[in-house]
Structure formats: C-alpha cells, structure tokens
C-alpha cells in the first residue's frame, strides 16, 4: 500500500495529570500527515484503553480543555500549543444545543469558522453536508426528536463545519448495535477522506472497532510498578496491512490480532 508518513501535525510530549493520585504519566506520541497518491487521505487514530484508565482526561487535554500537570500537546504544522476551540470534540452523549433545531445547530458551528459566508452560502453548505450525512429530512427537528445515531451524525457534522481539521471522538461506538457501528465506521471513513489534513482521534475501549477504522493505534495502559497510565504500545496498522480495508473485521488475522491487543489493555 503506497503511502508516506510526512510532517508531524499533532504531538503529545510527556503529558501527565495528577489529582490526589497520578492518572496519566508521560504520555508521548506523534501524529503524522499520511499521504497516498490520488486520494485525500486523512488520519484516523485510536487511543485504546480500558474504562477508568484516564481516557477522558487525555481527551480533554488533547482538546485543550484541560491543562495537564506536565507536558504539552502541540498541533498544526507549526506545532503550537493546543488551544480550546482548535480541536473539535464529539462527546459520548452527542451533546447539541437542545433549544436549536439541527439546521441552527449546524449554522452556529459556521459562525466563527475562518471562512466568512453569507447566510445563503451557509444554508447551501448545510444542505450539501446534510445530504452527505443523511440528515436532510431532520434539519427542522430539535435534538430531542433525533435518534442516537442521528444525533451523533449532527454532532460530527457540527464539528466539521467549524472548519477544524482535528476531531476527537469519545467512545463513538458505545451503545450502538452492530448495524449502527458499521454505519458509524462508514461515516468516519468518509470524513477522513474529505480532506488531506482531516484527523480523527478515537478514544475508545472497543478494541475491534477502533482498530478496524484506524491507521495508527496507541494503547493506553498501566505499567507494573509505575503509577498512572501511559502509552504502552504504538500499532502501525498500515505496516501490518490492516488499515483502509473495508472488511477487515472479517479477516482471521485481524481477529486474532484484536484478541492479542485485548489482553494488553
């Protein structure tokens, strides 16, 4: 599979957070811009760890919402310290403004995007994206009228429309049935292929689905005798020939590999 790992577009350097005990310790990893010929190939990464390991804390640190006790998260080609608002987040409960319709929730996302648009242009962009995300018929609805899957799609689209290239997704497969998981994976792949610099970071304990969609995965786990969790393993799924394969979950080698990883978290 021809590809190149180019410049670093996101890096976590020695990130740690301590409250009454150490939660995260020396979390260090880099995200490279991956390019493939004739494809807008974005990046899909997974931070995999068991429940309660500190994934949510890392999620907030990467989004610039929480200041780590040690270390820095840098983003962009100039690798500047991340600020809140530079990274989109799709929380596990797919939070939206309950008092706004889907159309308004999407419109508000574009109010502060770098590209200035007229009202007509904003409507046009929403219309185009809604078709892509199968939301056209739901634009006039309020969030409480949507199903979980529809809310998730609105939440993802809302972050895309802000113009951000990096989106963090907290447990995107949680509580979904098998059919819905397939649809979410399909959607996330679609998003990753929309722009060369689109970078999706999936924070999840669902090893199988997280690995199935990622090009790189980081295992967040505790090490014996050491306090807190850290990145214990980096998995290059492209190198293993397991990335960008639509039906990878049916592959016996992938299933065996998934089982091995499950024992490591």
């Amino acid at each position, binding site marked *: 599979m021809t590809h190149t790992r180019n410049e670093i577009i996101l890096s976590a350097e020695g990130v740690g957070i301590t409250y009454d005990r150490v939660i995260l310790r020396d979390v260090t990893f880099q995200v490279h811009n991956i390019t493939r010929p004739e494809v807008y190939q974005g990046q899909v990464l997974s931070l995999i760890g068991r429940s309660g390991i500190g994934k949510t804390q890392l999620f*907030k640190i990467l*989004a610039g919402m929480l200041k780590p006790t040690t270390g820095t998260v840098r983003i962009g080609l100039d690798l500047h310290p991340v600020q809140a*608002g530079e990274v989109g987040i799709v929380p596990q409960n797919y939070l939206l*403004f309950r008092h706004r319709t889907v159309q308004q929730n999407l419109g508000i996302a574009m109010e502060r995007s770098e590209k200035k648009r007229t009202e007509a242009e904003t409507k046009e962009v929403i219309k185009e994206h809604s078709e892509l995300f199968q939301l056209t018929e739901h634009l006039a609805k309020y969030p*409480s*009228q949507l199903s979980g899957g529809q809310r998730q799609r609105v939440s993802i689209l809302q972050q895309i429309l802000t113009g951000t290239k990096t989106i963090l997704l907290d447990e995107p497969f949680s509580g979904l049935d098998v059919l819905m998981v397939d649809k979410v994976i399909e959607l996330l792949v679609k998003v990753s292929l929309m722009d060369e610099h689109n970078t999706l970071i999936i924070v999840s304990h669902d090893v199988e689905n997280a690995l199935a969609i990622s090009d790189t995965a980081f295992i967040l786990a505790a090490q014996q005798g050491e306090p807190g969790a850290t990145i214990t393993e980096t998995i290059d799924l492209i190198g293993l020939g397991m990335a960008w394969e639509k039906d990878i979950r049916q592959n016996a080698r992938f299933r065996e590999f998934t089982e091995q990883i499950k024992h490591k978290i």
Partner: protein
Amino acid sequence: MMQWKSIVEPFAKLPRSAVVGLLIAEALVALVLWHLSGDGLIPDPIDVGRSVVKVVTSDAFMENFLASLFLTFKGMGISILIALVISYLSVVPLFKPLADLVVRLRYLTLTGLIFLFTLLTQNGSQLKISLLIFGIVPFFITSLLSIIADIDKQEAELCKTLRMGPWRTLWEVVIVGRLDQVLEVMRQNFAIAWMMITMVEGLSMSEGGLGTMLIKSNKYIDMDTVFALLIIIFLVGLFFDWLLGRLRAWLFPYTSVQTAK
C-alpha cells in the same frame, strides 16, 4: 380494562378517563365532607357557591380584580427582570456574592421590614410594589441559580469547540438555552406573588384589590364572601398556572416535542 387495585398501586399508570373520574370523585367527597363538617363557623359549600356568583357580579369586583392583577403583573415583571440580571451575572465572580446574599434574604421576614419600607417609599402604591418585589426576588433567584447550577459543563465545552467566547457562551447556554426554564420558574413563583398580593394589598387599601375585599369581609365576619374570595383567588391562580404552562409549550416547542426512541 383497568384493574381497580391499580389506583392504590405505587407508580401505576391509569387511563386518562380513570384519572378524570378519580379527580371528580375525590372533589365530590371533599365537598360532602365540607358540607357535613360545617358547624356554623365554616359556611356551607352551597352558600359559598352563591356568594361566588354574588361577588363576581358585583360592581366593585372587576375594578378590584384588575387592581390585584395589575399589581401582580407589575411586581412579577420587575422582580423577574431584577432576578434575571442578578442570576445571569452570578456566573461572573464579581457578582456571585451579591446573588448568594439575595438568595439568603428569603429568610428575612417581611413583617419586620414594613415600617422601614413605609419610610422609604412615597405612597401606598410604591410600598406595595416594593414589598412584593422584595418578597419575590429571593425566591426567583433561588430557582434561577438552581437552573444554572444544573447546566451540564459539557455545554460550555461545546461552546469552546465552536470558538465562542465566555460572554457568547453565557448568552447561548445560560440565557437563550434556559429561557424555557425561566418561564417555568415564573409559573412556579407566580403562586408566591399571587399569594403575597392579598397581604400587601392589606397594607394600603386605597387602591382596592382582592386583598382589600378579603380584609374588609373578614372585618365584618362575612365568611361566605371570605370563602368566595378565597375560591376566586384560588381559581385565578390555577388559570394563570395553566396559561403559563401553555405559553411555555407554544414559545419553546422543544420542551414538548416527541422524544425519539
């Protein structure tokens, strides 16, 4: 078919017709008990019913009723404005102590402050409105602060990801995002205002009002009229409670839309 035992079962869901039937039956039982328990001191429900008609059709009623209604709306309007400003500003650290202080003022009894308010105000109308506002605002702010405290922190985080500044976040999440709940607070606190109105009207009777009518009837031990006025005040209160509920559903459709399964 409804099982009779379900009317005494915790969390049992009854059909609408059964709920209405239960309501009518219990109201009838209450009326019968009222009728049987009357020993001359409490007027008979039939006499009170006649008195309600008599009061409502009297020349003075509409003028007094409108006076009470106007005073309540004026007091509610000013109170909600003051309460909203203080509550919204409570998220700014500088104003938090002020909001906390006003919330605690609900434990101050109005009776002891009437003399002070009489000195501070220029006429009876000002006295009534000031007392009403002083009595309502702490309760309004208590309810509004509780709404603000219940806001999910993730909403503010969502605003950050949408690159909103702190003031825009305040506008979107606390002000616009909770307007429906403000109306609900108004609905709940309308009862306090409506209840207080008879008390403050008694302090300055020159402008009339239902409270004035009540005090005069009490003075002459005209218990039929007292009970009739109590029932009118009660029914008007229920009507506005219903009206504000309908207004909320109409103004903020997302509060009553069908939730997706």
